[in-house]
Structures are given as structure tokens and as C-alpha cells.
């Protein structure tokens, strides 16, 4: 049987065009899209595996440095309890020969940590300010301040003022002169 080549060629062109536009081209585009998805998934997997490996390393680091981090925890306790602070001031005062006459819880304000403003939106650090009136001698006050500075909890003394309870004329007496000290102390908590 003789094939009519010109007519068959035209039919072939039509068939090829239909196959390309209806089957091959969409399949090619699908294949390209899948390839992109595959690369993205692979990147996501790599990213996640590296991320969680890093988290595990960091957690291990935290476990190894528990003591240091515990100090940070005690410096910045998660909850605000005033009674241990009052007890601490009373205890340190009496240890240094001072009489704590009054402790006034004067202020509770959020601290402005510029660098971490985004981090602190969840649960920010708060400033707790106390005004403490103490009676005692100068050496006692210094020791009291050193106790605050050495404490695991961070205390910052904002203002110190004192006046002698005795006249200047009695400064040469053998006893150390007594002063009324007024301190404004700030500590921090979440």
C-alpha cells in the first residue's frame, strides 16, 4: 500500500502539535514545578535539621552551665515576691550593725531595655524600687552596700543621703557617730 506522504506529513504535524501542547508541555511545566518544590523541601529539611541540632547543642550548653545560669535566674527571678527582699534588707542590716527603721516599696515600673524591646514585649523586666531608712554608723553602711553589691540578686543604689544625728561638736567622741541613712535601692524581676 502506497502512503500518501504529503497528506500523512500534514496529519503528523497536527498530531505532534496536539501532543506537545496538550500533553508534553503541561507535563514539562509540572516537572519544573515539582523540581522547585523538591529543592525547597530539601532546603526546609536541611534548615530544620541544622536548627534542631543547634537547639540540642545550646540545650547541652545550658545544662553544662547550669550554675552560671542559676545566678542569672536569681538576679532576674521570674516572679516578684517582696517579702524575701524585705527579709534580706533586714538581715543584712542587722549583720552590719544597722537598724532598718523603714522599708517603703515605692515603685514598680517596666525597665527600658532598648536593645531588647522586641524580646520584652512578651514578659519584660520590671524595676522594683525601695526606699530604706537605716540608722547606724558609716562603716555599717559601707558593709551593707558591699553586701548588696555581692548579693546574687542585682541591687542598684540610686540615691544615698545621710545626716549625722549628733552635732559636729561631738565628732571627737570615741564612738563612731550614728547617722540616719536614706537609700533608694532598685532591683529587677520579670
Amino acid at each position, binding site marked *: 500500500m502506497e502512503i500518501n*506522504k504529503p497528506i500523512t*506529513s500534514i496529519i503528523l*504535524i497536527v498530531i*505532534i502539535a496536539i*501532543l506537545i501542547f496538550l500533553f508534553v508541555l503541561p507535563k514539562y511545566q509540572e516537572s519544573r514545578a515539582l523540581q522547585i518544590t523538591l529543592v525547597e*523541601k530539601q532546603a526546609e529539611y536541611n534548615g530544620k*535539621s541544622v536548627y534542631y541540632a543547634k537547639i540540642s547543642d545550646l540545650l547541652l550548653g545550658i545544662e553544662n552551665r547550669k550554675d552560671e545560669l542559676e545566678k542569672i535566674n536569681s538576679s*532576674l527571678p521570674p516572679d516578684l515576691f517582696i517579702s524575701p527582699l524585705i527579709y534580706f534588707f533586714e538581715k543584712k542590716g542587722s549583720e552590719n550593725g544597722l537598724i532598718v527603721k523603714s522599708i517603703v516599696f515605692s515603685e514598680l515600673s517596666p525597665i527600658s531595655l532598648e*536593645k531588647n524591646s522586641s524580646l520584652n514585649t512578651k514578659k519584660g523586666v520590671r524595676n522594683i524600687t525601695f526606699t530604706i531608712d537605716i540608722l547606724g554608723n558609716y562603716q555599717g553602711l559601707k558593709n551593707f552596700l558591699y553586701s548588696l553589691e555581692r548579693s546574687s540578686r542585682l541591687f542598684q543604689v540610686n540615691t544615698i543621703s545621710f545626716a549625722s544625728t549628733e552635732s559636729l561638736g561631738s*565628732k571627737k567622741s570615741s564612738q563612731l557617730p550614728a547617722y540616719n541613712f536614706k537609700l533608694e535601692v532598685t532591683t529587677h524581676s520579670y
Partner: protein
Amino acid sequence: MNFNLVYRLKSKSLWMDVVFYFLCALLIAVVFYYFLFLLKDYYQNQKIEEINKKIAVYGTQEQKNSEAKVFDYKKKIDDFTVIINNHKISSNIFTFIEENTLPTVWFSNFSMSESSNDLRLSGESNNMETLSHQISILENNKDYVSNINILNSQVGAGGTIRFVLNASLNPEIFKSKTVIQSNGN
């Protein structure tokens, strides 16, 4: 006989053959590529499913708890760093005053504000010369005293000089690593 016509007919038939066989080859290639893409899609889908299964392993509750713990500590460390960098040691002021006060000068009132870096002292000296020397010691200590802005003195009983002075302190004095040294007297 017209040989030219025979030659032209033969040439046309050859070109038709070339085009025909080329189209046949193209059709086979198109079908081949279709199946090739079909196979490729199948393997790519399988790979994506495998990776999805691997990804699903991550982000378990335990890992999320670890993540939360790490971020909690990070926040604490960051907050602590900011606080510790701004932390000031107020007892340094006493070391400074002790190191820079003449033995014949006494202070009776003291007021210090770390936030405004102000120091207010009231006291007594045995004479005006001693007070002048004392002020000069403080003024010359430029590392820790910016300036002395108020000075009020008056002769008290027995020739002693009572005075009040206000000094602006350099914030360096409250830095934890500051080593206060005497300026010499």
C-alpha cells in the same frame, strides 16, 4: 523525452521523504519525552514524600519544649547583659571620698544621686586654708569630678569653717571596674 521533468519529480519525492521521516522521528521523540516527564514526576513526587516524612520527625513536643527553654534562657541572658552593662556600683563614691578627704575635714551631711551624678556634701574644716586645699583636691580629680558647682562656706564657732558643696560626678565613678585612686594632697 523531457528529462528535466523526471529530475524535478525525483527531487520533490526525496524532499518529501526527508520531511516525512523527520516528522515520524519527531513524533517518536515527543512521545518519548512525554513518558520521560511522566517518570520524572513520579520519582520527584516520591522524593518529596520522603522528605516530608523526614521533616515531620522534627518539631515534636519535646523539641518544641527544648526550643522554648533555649529562647527563654536567651531572653534572660540578653536582659541580664543589658542590666549588668548599666549596673552601677555606688559604694565607689565612699572609696573616692575617703581617698580624697583631708584628715582635718569632716562631713556631716551627704547626699548622692547616681542618676543625676550629683553629690552634695556638708561639713566642717578647721580653717579656710584646709577647705581651699580640700576643694582643690576634688576639683583636680577630673577623672571622677566634672565640676564643683555650688560652694557655700561660713565661719562657725571656734574659728572652724562650715561648708556646703555640690559636685557633678563623672559617671565613670560608678563603673564596677573603676579603681579609685587618690589625687594626692
